């Protein structure tokens, strides 16, 4: 019975593709890209627990729901009011806002940008810079490995296009905000981002995903990020979807030599969410940091799959993920480090630390090291535990109640990741959010 349902779900997407015929702005290459993607999707089919990559995360809830493609519409006045809770007070910089996967210029803010820099919606960029887009869009992330990535390429409507020319620095952060509004039927959006950074360029980019209603919806997001030599990017992803939402995010990162890249993935929301972050270090002397904090309660399930691919020698990578799980929440952390034969003098560190605040919370953590070079340093570590009792006792002997002591320690645990956020308004907003969440001794 389940197999029939799955085939039905696949057929539904295939027929939706025929019916909707996503906009190509007259670009045949885009049409070909989409057709190729939907064909790959047809071959792959939707994943089940029997697929190795999805063994620990049951996506039946997503695959068995008939999602309607979300269309562009305005926020209700209630929703606009609620959106104010998500504002980073004091934030200065360019902001692109997307509602249900469509660019919403009304809410966007254009700050001054250096000459040649482009921060625009992808749909606009396809019209204005078709050659640039054609050369890069879909060239980094594979459509033939993941059904959801293939769906995104087939159905993508919009997202952000950021292009930073050689030697250019964008001093103020760029904020990409993806909002999903309320709806009567379950809806899906496929935000697609393309970020291209020239040699020696520098920027800070934050992607946030949030919902404003209490509906069931599915965000299927893909970001391709390419750094040329000596580029420096601080990239943040903040996921605050609503309680019944599903969020799947794939981030493909391609780094040249002497780059400095850091991604900080902060996850709070969604009933079921997954980040697939794949970084390819394709030049020497490059540094890649992947940090993350996931906080889950009730019956949330949070999955993080990272793949750090050292393709060239003398690169350093560092991963620190922390999870805080309460109630019946569950999490998966799968960290794969691949060191190719040429990648001598690789220095790769990976660590996942989970804090379980309840007896029913669970974490499945699996490091994978695939090493083909012989002069490398690779370490991985995973710890799962409770708050340290000695520390709780110490604080109590100073007069602090047990609940307050646990809150302080949980906050401190999370703060190791939050404290690394360099955009002050964002960090302060998150510190406050975390503080509010950890009162009364539980998430």
């Amino acid at each position, binding site marked *: 019975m389940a197999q029939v349902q799955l085939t039905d779900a696949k057929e539904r997407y295939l027929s939706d593709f025929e019916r909707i015929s996503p906009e190509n702005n007259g670009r045949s290459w885009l049409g070909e890209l989409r057709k190729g993607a939907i064909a790959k999707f047809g071959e792959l089919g939707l994943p089940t627990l029997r697929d190795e990559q999805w063994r620990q995360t049951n996506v039946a809830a997503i695959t068995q729901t008939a999602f309607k493609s979300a269309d562009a519409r305005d926020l209700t006045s209630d929703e606009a009011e609620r959106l104010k809770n998500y504002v980073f007070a004091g934030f200065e910089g360019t902001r692109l806002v997307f509602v249900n996967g469509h660019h919403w210029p009304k809410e966007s803010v254009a700050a001054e940008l250096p000459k040649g820099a482009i921060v625009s919606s992808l749909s606009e960029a396809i019209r204005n810079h078709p050659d640039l887009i054609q050369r890069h869009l879909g060239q980094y992330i594979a459509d033939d490995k993941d059904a959801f990535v293939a769906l995104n390429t087939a159905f993508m409507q919009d997202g952000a296009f950021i292009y930073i020319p050689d030697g250019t620095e964008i001093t103020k952060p760029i904020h990409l905000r993806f909002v999903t509004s309320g709806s009567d039927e379950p809806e899906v959006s496929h935000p697609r981002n393309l970020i291209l950074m020239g040699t020696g360029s520098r920027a800070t980019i934050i992607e946030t995903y949030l919902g404003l209603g209490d509906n069931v919806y599915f965000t299927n997001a893909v970001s391709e990020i390419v750094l040329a030599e000596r580029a420096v990017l601080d990239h943040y992803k903040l996921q605050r979807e609503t309680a019944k939402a599903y969020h799947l995010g794939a981030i493909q990162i391609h780094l040249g030599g002497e780059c400095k890249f850091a991604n900080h993935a902060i996850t709070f929301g969604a009933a079921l969410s997954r980040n697939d972050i794949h970084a390819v270090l394709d030049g020497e002397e490059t540094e890649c940091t992947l940090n993350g904090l996931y906080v889950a309660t009730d019956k949330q399930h949070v999955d993080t799959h990272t793949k750090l691919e050292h393709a060239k020698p003398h690169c350093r990578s560092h991963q620190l993920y922390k999870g805080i799980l309460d109630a019946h929440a569950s999490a998966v952390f799968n960290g794969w480090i691949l060191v190719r034969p040429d990648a001598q003098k690789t220095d790769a560190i990976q660590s996942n630390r989970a804090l379980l605040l309840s007896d029913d919370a669970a974490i499945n953590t699996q490091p994978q090291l695939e090493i083909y070079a012989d002069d490398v340093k690779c370490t991985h570590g995973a710890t799962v535990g409770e708050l340290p009792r000695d520390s709780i006792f110490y604080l109590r002997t100073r007069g602090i109640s047990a609940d307050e002591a646990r809150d*302080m320690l949980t906050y401190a645990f999370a703060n190791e990741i939050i404290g690394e956020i360099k955009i002050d308004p964002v960090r302060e907003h998150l510190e406050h959010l975390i503080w509010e969440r950890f009162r009364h001794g539980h998430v």
Partner: protein
Amino acid sequence: LLELKPEERACEGIFLAFQYPVEIPGVSNTYFLKAALNSIRKYRGLEELDAMDFLKLMRERMKFVEMDETLLNRPVNQGFSGGEKKRNEIFHMAVLDPKLAILDETDSGLDIDALRIVSTGVNSLRDGKRSFIVVTHYQRLLNYIVPDFVHVLVDGRIAKSGGKELAFELESKGYQWIEDEIAAGAGA
């Protein structure tokens, strides 16, 4: 007292200076001390101190143990040397103003300079109203923190009590004679 929770005992005025103070990454010395002090003040029906007043109090009490201001915003005891940890314990005591302070082998692992500073800090808090229980195995600490009473515990029981001279006697004779006394007493 034994029925009370640890935080209640602290609020009632008991302070324990640990032999091995724990490190608490991510929680700053200042932050937690302010929360602790205000928790105790609230319990005693006093007004909580705001950030400014608390900072003033901290700066005053820091002098008791010659504490460096840079250690204030560091996470509790993180990366502190043994001597710095013990001084931090006494600093906490100076801020929290307990009625009964228990110093658990405060001298263990301290060099002579650290010992001197810690002892000066403790002595400055001896106001005739506050009580101290100093737990130690060695005379050296007692040269700096001169006790009013000395109690010797054997197997968890007070076996002998006296004035500060008892400590000197132990230093020269050891503990065996007390255990012999107990054995003889038991036999009699």
